[in-house]
């Protein structure tokens, strides 16, 4: 469902980290152009 889509993956420290999001979306056909995990504290 993400074929041909460019993806910005923003992860959260206490939630899902960006590498996990990127891996899922790449498996679904997307192209991750930026992945970062944020820490809000």
């Amino acid at each position: 469902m993400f074929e041909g889509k460019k993806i910005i993956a923003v992860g959260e420290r206490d939630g899902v980290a960006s590498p996990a999001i990127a891996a899922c979306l790449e498996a679904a056909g997307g192209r991750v152009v930026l992945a970062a995990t944020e820490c809000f504290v």
Partner: protein
Amino acid sequence: MANGEATRRPALLAASAVLAHVPGLVRMGSKPSRELERDSGLEAKIGASLRGFDEAVGYAPNQAFVGLLHPREMGPRPHFSQRLEGAQRFGPDGEIMPEEEFIALLALADPFKRVRLASPLASRAAEALAHHPLHRYFDLQALKQAVGKPEAEVARDALGLFSREGDCVASVAPGHEQDSNLSAGVLLENLACKASGSLALMHLMDRNDIDPASIDYVIGCSEEAVGDRYQRGGGNMGKAIAEMAQCREASGADVKNFCAAPIPAMVVAASLVAAGVFRRVAVVGGGSLPKLGMKFEGHLKHSMPILEDTLGAVGVLIGEDDRVSPLMRLDSVGTHRVRSGASAEAVMEALVTEPLKRVGLRMTDLDEYATELHNPELTEPQGSGNVPERNYRMLAAMAVRQGLIERGAIGHFVSTRGMPGYAPTQGHVASAFCYAGHAQRSLTAVGSAQRVMMMAKGSLFLGMMTEQADGMSFVLERNG
């Protein structure tokens, strides 16, 4: 085990916690300073939203920070709109220091005389510090020598420090005109860290009748990087703090690990004691100036005062078993390994489930968990949620999964083994470290707990050298 070895069991001998209320320095926090550059109209809004000293002292989370009440005794929120009756500047763990005295302390922390004080501030601060319980640590002669003309310094190349009312009260000159690692801003951050950390160590020694010369080693676990262009993170804030706190027999070093640093620093300290290398090791984390006002936009948006107006600092002393103080169980250390995984569940498994299983304890054998204790009144208005509650609910869910509690008991687990957040958003200080004084009370005669877990996490990925996080935990246990 020989007697000599038995006495080497490491114990948490003492703990302290201090706040420096520095509303004037809020503008110099990383977030406010960036936003002020973009929006000149913000200056007035920030100025109008800064708290006075009495408000900061009367703020229940600040009273909990210095040990005057337990975080579970803070009462219902919102705390910021109430002033706690009977609130005091000095508590069992330390104090809430007003801005003028702290700016004077910056000058006393500065061996290279980059800090200049306006004469009126220096006079008032000298008078206050002469009557301070720690006055014997303060060289008031040096304070006189730090008097200068801050406004003239600012006109040259110095950074001005302004009061809450906007008056220029001090300046910090750069250490080297071509070295950004010694810029006035960096020196100010490092001096604020050193001054607040030293204040915490002084209180620790003063309140527990500890001879400064009896401390062998001081480990710094602060967030700042001390160095020059050839060694940006050269370090050893630990020894700088040892010197300022008159620990003349001590050496020191730093342990760095983002917000997690205090827990590995305590484990290193306990290991040095257990190995017989040193008898008494202090671990000190000074305050983080860049984090002042980090969530100020949320406070302004909700018409709240800017609550991130304090620098927090904590000190602990780890030494040989005195048969009274809580023991640090080195066999219970939990680590987040490279292979552990980044999900919140994986981190908690590594830091809680695995080490407890190893030493034959269940999650319900621990009376309290000290984890990230950030005050939600600081984080929620900006959309960052309630960090401690998130941690405690995760712990409770793990206890349900392990069949230790019923699903319906999650709330009880959170409220009895956890606690509301009360720490300023000073990452490392908020990460269990600030609870050391409370843990010591819980685990000695005045409390009834048998075991407290101390646990911290660090966001290593922010430094862009790895996508990993890290964390460490250990169990503190009642002695005897």
